[in-house]
């Protein structure tokens, strides 16, 4: 079974996403929410790193937090899945446990 990792900090301000990618085991899922959603956008200084991490981890982004910040679906990295609050609950239920990266 696998873990759900959550990241709610901007990757340009804190190294939370960096630490998550470095320490998460293959097969896990990463949900980006609040300021963490910026980590799922294209063309940034960390886009390549996130894309590389998608080989072993499934990335999700919380839609309401994306919309609040003016991020459109077409600005997301290919392969990132958008979920709503219900989807967040499903992810929690479908994984063994939740590992937050603050």
């Amino acid at each position: 079974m696998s873990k759900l990792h959550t990241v709610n900090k901007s990757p340009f301000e804190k190294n939370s996403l960096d630490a998550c990618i470095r320490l998460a085991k293959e097969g896990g899922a990463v949900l980006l929410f609040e300021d963490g959603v910026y980590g799922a956008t294209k063309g940034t200084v960390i886009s390549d790193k996130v894309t590389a991490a998608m080989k072993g981890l499934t990335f999700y982004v919380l839609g309401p937090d994306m919309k609040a910040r003016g991020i459109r679906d077409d600005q997301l990295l290919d392969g990132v899945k958008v979920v709503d609050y219900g989807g967040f609950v499903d992810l929690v239920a479908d994984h063994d446990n939740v590992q937050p990266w603050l």
Partner: protein
Amino acid sequence: MSDIKKFLYLNRKAPYGTIYALESLEVVLIGAAFEQDVSLAFVDDGVYQLVKGQDTSEIGMKNFSPTYNALGDYDVNKLYVEKESLEARGLTEDDLMPLTYEDEDDDWAEKPSIRVVSSAELADIMDEQDVVLAF
């Protein structure tokens, strides 16, 4: 007049995740009543404050981005955005709100308030200030 000082509000935080962006905007609007020479700088994650298309209807928070449109009416019309910060985030000026003001010295012509500047240019602008307030 010598009692007019140059104030710069330095914005380095994304909106919504923390309260800094909203607090800065509130202080700018309060400060505008004192008729000083006011500029705003948007650096690092602060550039996200000006991204267009913000819609907070699903997160239960106030969308304060339309308020930046009102700054021109308070003679706050120098909004400097650091080019390097935009580029690091995959953004261009087209991703930002088209903020404008009416220039009273030029027959109220509508002009853009946002000026994208390099780090070196912004360093010079910051060096000219009497007061820099950081958020």
